[in-house]
């Protein structure tokens, strides 16, 4: 069976025209450079050698970061733009849900816009007449259909656009991240409509950031990154590969954030050490400042924290963790002189600056430690029971009475990821139990 959509070695290069900023028709004519000016001065490859094929009747998900070329690919399939090289072949009537309600005229009524939009999408007047009631009911706009479209709310506008496009009854439906248009109820209706399309053996190409949707809905998925095909195949596998890459990316981001924070703190700390400690570098008693989330570093540096590393389950440095993973914070310290009044402290803050947890060795009834030369202290969490989010860490070495040797406030950042969208800060280990009278229907989709 021939595939519904087939891209073979497709590349798309956008022109930037940057040098053309001030070119005018006159200068173009005078210098006889019209044709040259229409040539790209600088190019940007949106897609490079992309090949994939979508079998008839399947639902195909395309994922990738912003600017990775997903929408460019969709526009090529829709025929709106032409590939720079390679071939795009589509079998059957296409309807593209790329921009909903593109071409609606604000001054005329919803009714007239439905007709004109339908004609633009390739329907005949009669076909629209036949489907008109379905369209209006689907958009839930019966009472407003004769009002000018300019009086519609953006949700109404999108719903009407969606309703028209979906009733074109295409063989191939292209969807570009448009499910976010309506309220919960409308989104469900759209998904039901997609399911109906699937049952009727139509092909759907779905570009989305909703990985859930891809996993639940698609038969096959494609991950594009920077215009290159990364992975094709089973949605679960592709989504996981994508998530891993996203985490690596976040890891880089966290490292950069931490490095920047340290650098800034280093500059401030330098000033703080020059005698004027407490005036600029922060309070002598850190508990004063415990709940004020300003980054910084202060202390006398009699004992210095030379390195802070977050370790994952395998003891590897990491900045991205999953809910429930083990996490260890390893401090490397160096005492300038032998010291026997040394307390190690840790504080955990969420992105809003709320202290999630704080402790130190003295609170936990350990005697002040003695330290000479280099040492290491590791704070190990068995299971990181936090909800998804970005968290920051305080680490400190100080005297029993709070006099700080080296206090690093919020300098280290890590991210907790979770596939559950629960809320709050703490995620207790839990389970649900129900009596026999509570029944759950099979999950939808």
């Amino acid at each position, binding site marked *: 069976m021939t595939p519904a959509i087939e891209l073979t070695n497709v590349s798309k290069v956008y022109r930037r025209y940057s040098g053309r900023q001030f070119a005018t028709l006159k200068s173009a004519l005078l210098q006889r450079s019209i044709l040259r000016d229409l040539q790209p001065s600088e190019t940007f490859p949106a897609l490079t050698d992309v090949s994939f094929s979508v079998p008839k009747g399947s639902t195909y998900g395309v994922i990738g970061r912003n600017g990775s070329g997903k929408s460019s690919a969709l526009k090529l399939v*829709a025929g709106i733009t032409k590939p720079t090289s390679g071939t795009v072949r589509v079998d059957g009537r296409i309807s593209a849900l790329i921009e909903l309600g593109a071409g609606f005229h604000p*001054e005329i009524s919803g009714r007239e816009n439905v007709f004109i939009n339908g004609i633009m999408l390739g329907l005949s007047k009669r076909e629209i007449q036949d489907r008109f009631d379905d369209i209006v009911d689907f958009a839930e706009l019966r009472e407003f259909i004769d009002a000018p479209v300019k009086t519609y709310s953006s949700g109404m506008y999108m719903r009407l656009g969606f309703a028209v496009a979906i009733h074109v009854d295409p063989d191939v439906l292209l969807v570009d991240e448009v499910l976010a248009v309506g309220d919960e109820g409308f989104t469900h209706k759209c998904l039901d409509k997609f399911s109906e399309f699937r049952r009727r053996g139509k092909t759907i190409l779905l570009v989305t950031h909703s990985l859930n949707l891809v996993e639940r809905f698609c038969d096959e998925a494609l991950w594009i990154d920077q215009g290159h095909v990364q992975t094709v195949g089973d949605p679960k596998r592709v989504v996981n590969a994508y998530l891993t890459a996203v985490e690596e990316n976040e890891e880089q981001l966290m490292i950069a954030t931490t490095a920047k924070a340290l650098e800034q703190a280093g500059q401030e700390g330098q000033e703080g050490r020059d005698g004027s400690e407490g005036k600029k570098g922060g309070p002598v008693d850190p508990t004063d400042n415990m709940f004020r989330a300003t980054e910084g570093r202060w202390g006398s540096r009699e004992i210095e924290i030379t390195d802070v590393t977050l370790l994952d389950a395998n003891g590897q440095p990491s900045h991205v963790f999953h809910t429930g993973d083990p996490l260890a914070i390893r401090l490397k310290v160096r005492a300038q002189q032998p010291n026997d009044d040394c307390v190690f402290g840790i504080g955990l803050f969420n992105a809003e600056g709320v202290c999630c947890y704080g402790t130190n060795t003295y609170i936990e009834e350990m005697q002040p430690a003695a330290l000479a030369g280099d040492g290491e202290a590791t704070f190990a969490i068995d299971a990181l029971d936090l909800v998804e989010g970005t968290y920051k860490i305080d680490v400190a070495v100080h005297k029993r009475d709070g006099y700080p040797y080296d206090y690093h406030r919020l300098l280290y950042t890590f991210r907790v990821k979770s596939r559950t969208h629960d809320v709050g800060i703490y995620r207790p280990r839990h389970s649900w139990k129900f009596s026999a009278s509570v029944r759950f229907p099979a999950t939808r989709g």
Partner: protein
Amino acid sequence: MFSNLKSLIRYRGLITSLVARELKARYRGSVLGFVWSFINPLLLLLIYSFVFTWVLPNPTPGIQPYALFMFCGILPWTWFAASLSEAANSLIAGGNLIKKVLFPAEVLPIVSVLTNMVHFFLGLPILIAFLIIYRHPPDAWDLIWFPVAVVVQLVFTCALALLVSALAVHFRDVRDILANVLTLWFFATPIIYPMSLETVQRYKWIFNANPFTHLAVSYQEILFYYGPIGHWRWLSALGALSVLLFLACYWLFDRLRDSFAEAV
């Protein structure tokens, strides 16, 4: 290119509904609505009549009543000029359609031309009414040529509309240049003065090189002057030329088509 031209015929449903939409949207919200299409040319004609009968009488023989003479040329000129200025903006204004929907771009400038053609037709009853009021009946046989002149102008205007719309996407200056060119062009065309003027006759070749001269003169001969139309050869030649021009402009438009979605 020719397959695209053929599909243009397939889009006639789209074109007619877009023209209807433009017309509807134009007067939506105004109290008088469509009546404006009559009132605008009527007021124009009344002003000309007043100015050139009372304020600044133009006694040039052969073009009396002067206001009527002028109106015969201004009505088609308005169609022409408004079409081009709207067409120049049509692709840019319709950018959403071109970028986000698979949409035949050439429909947009053509819709601009056709919309203004409807306004032109709506102005005709005013012209006819004044022809009757001034007791200045045209030659009934000449009127056969009227549809010919309209078709020639339609093809000619569509050709230029395609050209300016496509160029305006890449060179936004086209819109400003066009506004000035149209003003110059208006005065370079025998609309407010007759072709028979002595000065005009001296530089006849320049005026003959101006395509719109032949349209204006044809309209004047058909609607204003009594007697057999002497300009039909020029009109036919312009008709043939317009078809060629249309094909050339369509070819250019077609070549630039793929760049629209990116450059708009």
